[in-house]
């Protein structure tokens, strides 16, 4: 769990009301999966050669998978996890990309139960930041083996994250 970075109450950006209101205004927790976001996660997994990719929207107490591919069955059915199991929450808190080469040794995530029980090993997440400067979540990829991410791979993920964010911004006008 990412408890080492957790703070209580209003100081934690995860619980910021303006950010949560932006998530609501953009309709990002709808059950329907946006086709463009789905294409984006599939392209992310394919181009980085990893089994799993998702657009994760980090809410106050859980993350919501607005689009996903390659998740373990229970995560796909739940469409999310408790926020204390969210790697993406770290990117939301800092506003910076969060990269994990080996989750079993990374101090911020090694104690999250899905690392051992669902074999999460490597992770790279790019923050999804709105035009109003709210960080909603990430476009991220996950693998079941340790991995070093090259600069080119992270650049690819950034490009796809911008594509996802452009689509999310379009939702304001729909």
């Amino acid at each position: 769990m990412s408890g080492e970075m957790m703070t209580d109450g209003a100081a934690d950006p995860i619980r910021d009301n303006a950010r949560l209101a932006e998530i609501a205004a953009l309709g990002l927790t709808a059950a329907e999966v946006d086709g463009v976001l789905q294409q984006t996660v599939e392209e992310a997994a394919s181009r980085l050669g990893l089994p799993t990719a998702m657009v994760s929207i980090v809410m106050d107490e859980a993350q919501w998978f607005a689009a996903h591919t390659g998740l373990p069955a229970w995560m796909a059915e739940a469409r999310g996890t408790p926020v204390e199991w969210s790697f993406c929450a770290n990117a939301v808190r800092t506003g910076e990309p969060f990269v994990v080469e080996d989750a079993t040794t990374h101090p911020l995530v090694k104690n999250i139960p899905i690392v051992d029980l669902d074999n999460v090993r490597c992770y790279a997440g790019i923050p999804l930041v709105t035009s109003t400067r709210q960080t909603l979540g990430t476009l991220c990829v996950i693998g079941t083996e340790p991995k070093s991410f090259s600069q080119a791979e992270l650049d690819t993920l950034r490009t796809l994250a911008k594509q996802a964010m452009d689509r999310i911004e379009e939702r304001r006008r729909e």
Partner: protein
Amino acid sequence: MIRTQSTVTVHTPPPVPGYGLAPPTPGDALAFLARGVGPDRAAGEWLGACKRAGAPTAGLSVDEMMRVSGRLAEQDGVVGVIGQSLVVRVRTYRLLAGSFSRAESSR
């Protein structure tokens, strides 16, 4: 573990072994809502969601928590997001607890 609220005594479901996840309680939901919209509005949102779900306001089963969370998730704005968080937490608990229970019974 036994939890008592008002005159209702409830067996709180145990955490899922390995994952350590327990389902959210009405107290958790009220605390999340109060943090988002203040304690007075939180109480009103909770009571309204319980009424719409046909559930009691305390001593809820996991299924009742799911229904009430779903009603909260239908609300606009921050309350809806908080409700959706609760939905994910209850759904995750049910899926993992069910999977653990099936694995145990097949041994």
